[in-house]
């Protein structure tokens, strides 16, 4: 690699890194909303007593996905095991998420709703889930 090619290469890398870290570059990008959280919120909105086979498949895809975070996997697992309410073991794991995330975050909200699920979704929780789905 000759000197001018090296300079060009380094210049390109610097430009790319510089642009990447400019917050304004993303200001009008089509942001990828939190698709996994939305998917789980969508399942919870209509959940009655326990998830259907189709819903379990969707939850399994969250568990199998490399792009799912550990917290999202814990929530997916907890929804999968719901039988009228979440299991005591899952409730403990969800509590850890609740304790370690910002109270106003969508992960925290979803964890709280799954943890307190009892046979169906309350009107208040349904609105919260619809809002997550609406805004991402």
């Amino acid at each position, binding site marked *: 690699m000759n000197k001018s090619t090296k300079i060009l290469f380094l210049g390109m890398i610097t430009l790319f890194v510089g642009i990447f870290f400019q*917050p304004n570059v993303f*200001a*009008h990008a089509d*942001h990828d909303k939190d698709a996994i959280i939305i998917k789980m919120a969508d399942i919870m909105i209509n959940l009655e007593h326990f998830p259907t086979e189709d819903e379990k498949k969707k939850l399994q895809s969250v568990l199998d996905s490399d792009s799912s975070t550990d917290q999202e996997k814990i929530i997916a697992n907890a929804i999968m095991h719901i039988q009228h309410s979440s299991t005591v073991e899952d409730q403990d794991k969800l509590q850890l998420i609740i304790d370690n995330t910002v109270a106003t975050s969508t992960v925290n909200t979803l964890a709280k709703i799954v943890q307190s699920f009892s046979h169906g979704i309350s009107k208040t929780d349904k609105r919260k889930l619809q809002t997550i789905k609406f*805004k991402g």
Partner: protein
Amino acid sequence: MFIRIISLIVLFLSYAPNHVFGHGAVQRASELKDSEIRLFVADNMNGSVVVVDFPDGEVTHRVSTSPSIMILASNKDNKYIYAMRGRDTDDDLTSILSTGFDLEEQQFRKPHVIRTIKTDTPGGPRDSKMATVGGYDAILTEGEAEVVVIMSDDIDGYGELKTKRYKIAAPDHYHYLEGETYLYIGHLFNGFVQVLDRSTGKEVKRINGCPMLHGMTEDKESGRLIFSCARDVIVVGTLGEEKAELISRIPYPENTGRGCAAFLKGEGRVQWCYTEGIIPRLYRVDLSQEPYQFTTLSVESSIQQNSTDDGKYLMVLSKQGVLYLYHGRDGNLIKQIKVSEPFLGDWFEDVGKAILPDIESHKGIAYITLTHEGRIAEIDLEQGKVKRYIDIGGFPTRIVLLAKETLVQASN
């Protein structure tokens, strides 16, 4: 036989009147409504425009439009409302609604969709008002890079919609204002202001050096336009010798990497600008004092801001659901009003559809869409309290406010 014939005649006579009078005259019922304020609210749960009339606070109509409304704006004479779709679709449409205001009766009727037109990534409105070219409504299509001017005064009816098109430099996200004889089109990603001659459509010049151009305003007194760039704002003249000239640059008070996203008109010639995203800071500039310079106002992390129609108050809605009222000239905190529960989670609005709450006001009364609660808060700013809530359902976002007195004044 005779008895049978008579029976048939009697039967016929007793049956016939029902049909004869079936389409007779009925009492005509007036649909006129004598409202002081009419709010048009974009409900992005299903893409409808909800109409709320005041002082009743009654949801009077729901007009179905295309889903994912991004922009809601009234035209120059408030005859029409434009509902433009966001980009979470492959079918870019703009619905044009009648406002329902009956000029003759000076009261409101039922609004309805007049036309739905195809527009490639529509934009152009500012402060909920449509862009104009020579007094006609205009849509800036960000995909096709055109200014589409609707040359018909009356959009109602089945006739062809006459348009005139101006070619813009490049597809981009635009910030547009019309000057005395030129059109000024700020390009976000290309970072320049293109100046077009309104009469010929030809490019006059480009004012370069405004990377990430986002947000603009005008100072009516001087006719100058202000475009915000990544590290400063540029001031461009529109009148006399200043026309299409770069007058000055105003650096932001601190290099935050965030510029002004939009401007709010305060009292006098004070302008406030807020940065994109939920940032606890507003910038202030007084355009009556040269050299221009920004100062900073620290505010709670806010989700929406606006100023009152008279510029007296600067209204800042926090993520915690508190409306902070600041003085529109100096930015002193006057009062705070709890209006809703907190807005939980991230509220980042991209170009897919509108999701943020909106604030509009008229004569000391503010109206705020509480998107997360599916309702509107009506607030008495002087008394500092919520007068009432109006349930809309869905996810109310953008507001266009029409005041009857303004419509009446404009018609006289």
